[in-house]
């Protein structure tokens, strides 16, 4: 990616990571970008860096605009390594004495990542920094999605540099919402479901706060993916909608299987849900990625989970998705459990306990079938599915 001027004197100097497919356990089938923003004013400012290994590309992009040594101020909106990994090299190159602005929590967290004694400036929420013809304002956004997270806002250009918020893992030469097309919303939704869902109440508060202080936003520059310039309100409204977690009339039946018995149950349960007019889909865990399953969880009303009993336990991939789901704190869900077993049959009880811990409204009892479901067993699964479908329709 070459440096692109996104507003007069403001450049995206970030890099494209075409080949990343596993971003800390999140499947990035379209790769990603690490965006960094250069503002050339009386003071020259760089907002965020890029993942370690891409620092030479970052310096090359900056060099097309200005000698990187002329950068006066470094701003770190977020400590995570995909944005801070190049800091040691960049600070060394531009001068270790240059001021490094970050939140108060960023100060603590950067110091725990990097041993250098940089010239830190931990900013207060709302603090302003004049850089010539522009004033930058720092807005703390703790836990969106790390304690150190903050936004930087430029009121003259009406640009919000939003760190990871409003981002998407999408690598492409298209850099703006009006160029990339509507499919970008599915990447933004996946990003929300996998990174931000658990902070939904804080996002709603933040959107309210941004409205109260009357922040005028014409462009949103996240640290991943495209920039929202045509209609930044669209992604803000989508975040509000996703954060409210009002489910659709939809159920997903997430399962794994050893000898296809739990699979047969899953498909019969799905058919039963669908027969009640509720959108339903069986999802085999080993044929899907956990991060894609979470995107389906975001707007589903019923989360039905199935596992065989293996050595008195859950099948391991089922534990994986349950652990991942629990951490992302989905709200307003109906839960149900099922599974085939050979002799002991603990899986249904174990799944139910996990879903109850997530405060799902459980459909009890779950559905257990020994060995292979026969036609009566499948009819029971179908009826169990109908029961779930009716519960979705009641809500």
């Amino acid at each position, binding site marked *: 990616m070459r440096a692109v001027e996104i507003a007069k004197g403001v450049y995206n100097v970030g890099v494209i990571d075409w080949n990343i497919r596993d971003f800390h356990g999140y499947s990035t089938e379209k790769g990603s970008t690490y965006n960094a923003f250069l503002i050339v004013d009386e003071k020259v400012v760089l907002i965020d860096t890029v993942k370690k290994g891409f620092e030479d590309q970052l310096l090359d992009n900056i060099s097309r605009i200005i000698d990187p040594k002329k950068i006066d101020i470094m701003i770190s909106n977020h400590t995570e390594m995909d944005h801070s990994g190049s800091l040691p090299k960049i600070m060394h190159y531009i001068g270790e004495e240059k001021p490094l602005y970050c939140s108060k929590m960023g100060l603590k967290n950067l110091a725990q990542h990097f041993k250098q004694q940089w010239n830190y400036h931990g900013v207060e929420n709302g603090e302003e920094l004049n850089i010539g013809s522009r004033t930058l304002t720092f807005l703390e956004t*703790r*836990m969106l999605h790390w*304690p150190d997270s903050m936004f930087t806002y430029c009121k003259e250009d009406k640009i919000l540099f939003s760190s990871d918020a409003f981002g998407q893992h999408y690598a492409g030469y298209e850099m703006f919402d009006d160029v990339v097309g509507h499919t970008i919303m599915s990447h933004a939704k996946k990003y929300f479901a996998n990174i931000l869902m658990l902070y939904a109440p*804080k996002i709603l508060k933040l959107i309210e706060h941004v409205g109260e202080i009357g922040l005028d936003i014409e462009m949103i520059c996240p640290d991943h993916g495209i920039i929202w310039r045509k209609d930044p309100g669209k992604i803000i409204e989508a975040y509000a909608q996703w954060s409210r977690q009002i489910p659709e009339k939809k159920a997903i039946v997430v399962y794994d299987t050893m000898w296809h018995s739990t699979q047969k149950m899953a498909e019969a349960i799905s058919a039963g849900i669908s027969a009640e007019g509720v959108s339903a889909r069986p999802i085999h865990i080993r044929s899907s990625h956990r991060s894609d399953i979470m995107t389906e969880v975001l707007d589903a009303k019923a989360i039905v989970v199935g596992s065989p009993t293996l050595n008195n336990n859950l099948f391991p991939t089922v534990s994986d998705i349950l652990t991942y789901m629990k951490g992302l704190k989905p709200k307003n869900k109906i839960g149900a459990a099922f599974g085939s077993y050979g002799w002991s049959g603990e899986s249904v009880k174990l799944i139910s306990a996990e879903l109850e811990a997530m405060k799902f409204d459980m459909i009890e009892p779950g559905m257990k079938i020994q060995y292979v479901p026969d036609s009566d067993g499948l009819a029971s699964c179908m009826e169990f599915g109908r029961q779930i479908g009716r519960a979705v329709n009641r809500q």
Partner: protein
Amino acid sequence: MDKYVCNVCGYVYDPEAGDPDSGVDPGTAFADLPADWVCPVCGADKSEFSKED
């Protein structure tokens, strides 16, 4: 005295330790924290804490 956990970020308020960075002395019970005290990690207010099991 009971410990309280932040529902947003998982920080645990330990009354024995207090929160000296925010001016809360060691030995301060959760109930005695000022109403405007917030989680030192994530900024959540007191209502977002629950008693640790």
